[in-house]
């Protein structure tokens, strides 16, 4: 088997935008370009991080991979097979191999379900296990995998009898029970306590290593991404603007947007109270229905030149080993040094 588990080739997802009366009458169509030409390869056994501001298309990318929706354009390859369009039967198999977890311990879990019901339900849906006893045995194994031990103590518990961290373990056990190869973990803007999050990530990493899983980890938080992932892609308005090994991407960031994100992060160290944070970026993120011409980042970029403001988006090109950037001026900016800091 190839070491690439997933490949996205120029994948797009455009949603029709609501039109005002003038646009309706003139027949003008508008699109929300949620994902607008994403190409990437995820390697078997790695944790791949997808990071970016709210609305940049992370969840939509995750949903396309999960095949919860069809792309408007482009190709999705899974284990060498083109899965862009699948018939119903093949889709059922696919959905066993590729699972999604929402990283939110407070997300709704049926209050009348005990842990054992939460875990055996997907088995029933997919017709796995010959008997109830067999399914319950699988449920107990899944609890062990996420360290809710001894499983007998947890099988009978309802969601409200679990802490946030334990609830997330249960949600993870539910995805693991189908023995997927690939997991998309989507973390919302986080109200989760840091300790609970650290606990969840620690458990997820252990499970990933012991079962040889591959993760797509979606987050807003660069600090956590550095700790948790092998490689990171930074997304801006539906496109990847920079991608590389986690340490390289953070220590040697090249794209002005990545640099801005990095400088905005708070660090738990002393000596910063009396200075203000310098974040080298202007304005606010435009709507995905109105993507700027040229480099889509140019209206917010402190380095934009006339050639950035027209024509096609800069191509995502490999500039160092495994380090990709979509910025025509990255080299000049690098030569300017770290004056932006």
């Amino acid at each position, binding site marked *: 088997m190839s070491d690439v588990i997933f490949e996205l080739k120029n994948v797009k997802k455009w949603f029709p935008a609501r039109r005002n009366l003038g646009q309706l009458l003139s027949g003008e169509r508008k699109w929300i370009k949620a994902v607008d030409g994403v190409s990437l390869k995820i390697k078997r056994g790695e944790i791949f991080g997808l990071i970016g*501001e709210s609305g940049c298309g992370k969840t939509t990318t995750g949903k396309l991979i999960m095949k919860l929706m069809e792309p408007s354009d482009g190709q999705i390859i899974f284990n060498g097979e083109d899965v862009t369009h699948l018939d119903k039967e093949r889709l059922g198999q696919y959905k066993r191999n590729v699972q999604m977890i929402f990283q939110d311990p407070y997300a709704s879990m049926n209050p009348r379900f005990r842990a054992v019901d939460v875990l055996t339900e997907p088995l029933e849906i997919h017709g796995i296990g010959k008997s109830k006893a067999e399914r319950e045995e699988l449920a107990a194994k899944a609890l062990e995998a996420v360290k809710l031990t001894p499983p007998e103590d947890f099988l009978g518990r309802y969601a409200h009898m679990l802490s946030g961290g334990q609830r997330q373990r249960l949600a993870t056990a539910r995805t693991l029970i189908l023995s997927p190869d690939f997991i998309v973990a989507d973390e919302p*803007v*986080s109200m989760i306590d840091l300790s609970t999050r650290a606990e969840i990530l620690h458990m997820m990493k252990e499970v990933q290593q012991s079962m040889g899983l591959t993760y797509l980890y979606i987050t807003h938080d*660069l600090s956590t991404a550095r700790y948790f992932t092998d490689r990171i892609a930074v997304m801006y308005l539906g496109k990847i603007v920079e991608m590389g090994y986690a340490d390289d991407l953070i220590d040697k960031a090249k794209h002005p947007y990545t640099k801005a994100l990095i400088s905005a992060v*708070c*660090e*738990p160290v002393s000596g910063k109270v009396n200075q203000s944070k310098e974040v080298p970026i202007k304005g606010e993120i435009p709507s995905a229905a109105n993507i700027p011409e040229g480099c889509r980042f140019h209206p917010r970029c402190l380095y934009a030149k006339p050639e950035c403001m027209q024509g096609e988006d800069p191509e995502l090109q490999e500039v160092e080993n495994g380090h990709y950037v979509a910025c025509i001026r990255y080299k000049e900016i690098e030569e300017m040094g770290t004056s932006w800091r």
Partner: protein
Amino acid sequence: MERVLDVRNLKVYYFTSKGPVRAVDDISFYINKGETLGVVGESGCGKTTLGTALLNMPTPPGKVVGGEIIIDGTNILELNENQLRKNVRWEKISMVFQGAMNSLTPAYTIEKQMLETLRYHRELDEQEARERIKKYVNLVGLSDDVLKRYPHELSGGMKQRIVIAMALFLEPELVICDEPTTALDVVVQAQIINLLKELKQKLNLSFIFVTHDLATEAEVADRIMVMYAGKIAEIGTNDQIYGEQGPMHPYTSNLLAATPRLHKKVEKLNFIPGSPPDLLNPPAGCRFHLRCPVVMEKCRTEEPPLKEVEKDHYVACWRCYENE
């Protein structure tokens, strides 16, 4: 140093059908003029309960059951509703509520919401009120034209600026900001942090900055108060908590070790096993003892008092006192 707030032995309980939830349980602290006090702790430790209690405005079935809140020499717990509204709330102390930016009335323009809030707190003629609103909208870095817009036409950062402006209207000395950056993107978070620092300088304000994130607190708070299960675990200066020596209370150090750092590669993030106790039945002794990695016998039965162990550094932990 002049104190803008002095809290002594404050207790706030929620009287539920299952019994009292001891959300804030006998805590004492103060705030100096012009400083930002950070209040941190895990979800449910009592941060919001403390904030609303400081306005003497506990959310039912919550009640302040004991203690004193002293502002300008007056214990505001002894004032009636009328006096509080006239002389204290928004005049001396105001609050940016957790999630307020998402509860602006959708059908009102920003100007209309602001007018209503302002005139609820103080009688002003229309013209005066409008001018004041303009002044504060500009002060938080927005231009006048946002006034004619509706909440859904504003970004999260702009809405957060509006609710901050609304807390400043009546020129209070102390502003409580409850998780003002949590739901925002990192770039916008940094902008709001900068705004609060700028306001503090310009208006010589004091702030209480509430969050569950120790990293954010490091960048905004002059002193940090760490809460655990309705109690204060530790209070220290920014240097004492984030400097070389590090915090003293085992809860604070473990929380800090669970906080990821961008510019430092860590192999393993620490976490604190278990979860905070149920405040209907808090454990005896130190409330952290069930999760504490360095627990001693004494911790299980005797509650550690909050003691000043070095100048300005207060800790409630049996491990941290000398000669014990």
